[in-house]
């Protein structure tokens, strides 16, 4: 079980979802992806679409940087 990081804080729609989806597709079952994202549309929709596609969202935690969250997704 491997752990990967993805930073989409500088990305805009639709690349926030696109990069998350492409990264998740590369993982093996059980692998973890830590997605660093900003609040607003990415925070609202990246975890939601991960769940819709059958992944587990383990946690959503705000970082020390205001407005930046880490969403932990397991394949």
């Amino acid at each position, binding site marked *: 079980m491997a752990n990967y990081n993805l930073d989409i804080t500088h*990305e*805009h729609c639709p690349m926030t979802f696109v990069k998350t*989806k492409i990264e998740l597709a590369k993982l093996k079952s059980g692998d973890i992806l830590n997605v660093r994202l900003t*609040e607003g549309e990415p925070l609202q929709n990246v*975890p939601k679409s991960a769940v819709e596609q059958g992944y587990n969202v383990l946690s959503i935690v705000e970082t020390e940087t205001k407005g930046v969250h880490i969403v932990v997704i397991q394949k």
Partner: protein
Amino acid sequence: MAQQIPDLNDVLNQKQTKKLSIIAFSGDFDKLTAVFTLATGAAAVGYEVNLFFTFWGLDALKIKQGRSPVGKGFLPKVFGVFMGGLKSAPVSRLNFLGASPEIFRYMMRKNNVATLEELLEAAKALDINFYACEMAMHILGLTKADFIPEVKDVLGVATFLELSEGGQTLFI
């Protein structure tokens, strides 16, 4: 103000197959950007996506980029020279003799927004279904071999309607 985190249990209960079909009619840079933004965004959140390219939109699929006489017959070749593929796509307004697409590409890169070429690559990576219109290909003297290999099939109206049934359809 703290942003509300979505309730993920609701999402699971609402899970269903979703589908977006887009008729890509325009060969304009800005309209194709809209096509690929919607398509990649929808595919990334789990939609099945069908792109049906017709008329000027077919130009975006050509393998041979640049102004070259693609197509069978004299008139199609003239159109081929004037159109020239995705990299030569003009902006629908204020094109400034072809300077605008390059200005847009610069502004998109500067603002970290995906360019048209990046969106096309993402569309391929997301396994979006590309289809080409049989009738428009016939007029423009194009064959499937003139297009990128991701073009899954050449279709007519009836098959497109079957493919898009039960989902959302847009004409751009």
